[in-house]
């Protein structure tokens, strides 16, 4: 399905990203840690007032708040930071004319696209893991908040939301590849997605893994990525190269 050249392009994308987005990579981790710190500061202040009433288990509440913000990191980091990596590479190659000889070799558009998507996802996922580790250490040692990392939280943070984010990333890439000025839509999509995930997590707090949710999310994401791959391969080459 991918066509030849995918592995070569994947290696090339990783090399380029490694050399070009280090500062953005560090910034995204810093940003995720800062947001966690900022939110927890506010929770601590808010709960301190309630603690005087003496009716609530404040450490327990803070632990839950800390965990839900951790679970929310995936959609933000993968859709925003991943999108930056992917579009930067695509726009650079489009404007420098590098896409023309590349596509002129007969390589499938899908292979070029998938290499960029995979790289963007993997790098943003690594950034997510690092940010999560720092945040967990910060919560335990700096804020001294006891958190109970459940299996559900792990599956949700490390699998469900990243897979859904990958699907959103693939939709964003189709927008960038097919529209001349996709900036507004491309900024709106991850924002709406992040708000939806947040709303879902707040509205339906869970403590155990719901297999049906897992299956639905993975199936919808796989179908979305598959559809995007078909659309990308059918896109007019002229449109792909247009600045």
């Amino acid at each position: 399905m991918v066509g030849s050249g995918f592995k070569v392009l994947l290696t090339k994308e990783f090399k380029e990203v490694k050399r070009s987005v280090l500062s953005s990579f560090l910034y995204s981790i810093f940003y995720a840690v800062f947001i966690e710190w900022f939110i927890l500061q506010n929770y601590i202040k808010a709960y301190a007032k309630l603690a005087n009433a003496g009716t609530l288990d404040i450490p327990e509440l803070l632990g839950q708040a800390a965990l839900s913000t951790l679970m929310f990191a995936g959609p933000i980091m993968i859709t925003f930071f991943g999108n930056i990596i992917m579009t930067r590479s695509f726009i650079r190659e489009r404007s420098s004319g590098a896409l023309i000889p590349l596509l002129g070799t007969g390589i499938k558009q899908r292979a070029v696209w998938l290499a960029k998507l995979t790289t963007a996802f993997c790098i943003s996922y690594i950034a997510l893991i690092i940010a999560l580790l720092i945040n967990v250490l910060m919560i335990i040692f700096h804020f001294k908040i006891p958190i109970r990392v459940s299996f559900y939280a792990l599956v949700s943070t490390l699998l469900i939301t990243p897979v859904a984010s990958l699907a959103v990333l693939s939709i964003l890439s189709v927008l960038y590849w097919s529209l001349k000025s996709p900036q507004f839509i491309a900024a709106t999509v991850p924002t709406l997605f992040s708000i939806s995930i947040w709303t879902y997590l707040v509205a339906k707090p869970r403590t155990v893994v719901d297999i049906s949710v897992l299956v639905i999310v993975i199936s919808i994401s796989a179908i979305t990525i598959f559809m995007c791959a078909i659309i990308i391969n059918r896109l007019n080459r002229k449109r792909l190269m247009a600045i």
Partner: protein
Amino acid sequence: MMTDKIVQFSEVKYRYGPITALRGISFSLEAGEIFGFIGPNGCGKTTTIRIMLGLYRPYNGSVEVFNKNPLLNLSQIGPKIGMMLEQPGLFSFLTAKEYLNVYSGIYRMCSAVSKLHIDEALSVVGLENYQDRRTNTFSKGMKQRLSLARCLLNHPELIILDEPFDGIDAETRRKILQLLPMVSRTRGTTVFITSHNLREIELICDRIAIVKNGSILALDRRETLCNQDSKRFVLIEVEPGQNDMISNMIPPGSEFNDSQNLIRIEIADDESRNVEIKRILDKGIRIKSINEHKTSLEDIYFSMTDKDQ
């Protein structure tokens, strides 16, 4: 039936919105020839290349490259083509060697062949000492040279060059001028080259098409094209102060420019040239220099494109 036609354009038309870029052009490229496609900016040269590469879909006419439609069979014909386009199209954060490695991987070369071809391509363009430098530190000329190295990497059967002489130094220009006839002769490679550097085109091309406003004004072998309106002139620069004497003796059809002290005489052959020079010397006219001018591709090009205006 198999033919020796590497590329075949038949009545190809292309439009960018309301602007017509190609108005039904037809030509073919034969195996092993160097074909020049010349014309002013915006005449449709780059559009022709992009159609040839299957990147643009013409709205009329048919295109075949290696007897196949490039729009539908790019994966089969792409590996047989090498291209050097107006923009070098490099990957900014890779070194020259890594860049060529990407393409050798796409062409599915094994590591031994890949190394051989990369070393050869870098050496041909004179970048062997810069192979580990990132391409975003290269000058424009070096980028063009690396683009040429990529073009030669897969030993293509068809080389497409879009304005290859733009922004390169004299040494690289000379290399290209030596290289193209060499690969055409030794490997039977067909070369399609667009340029507005007419001198270079005249030096290396077997056949030339002159294009303007999306139409081919002339297409023929270089010699035929240059000889169809061929005229030879001898330009004799004389010492000043002999105007009266010269005005009385210049033959009909010749001109005397008294501000430049230049006599321009049309000649048929070497013998008539010698006769005219002897006649002037016999009249006692003092000569400073003698030069001969033959109708060049540039003269033909301007006579055609000016006529078309």
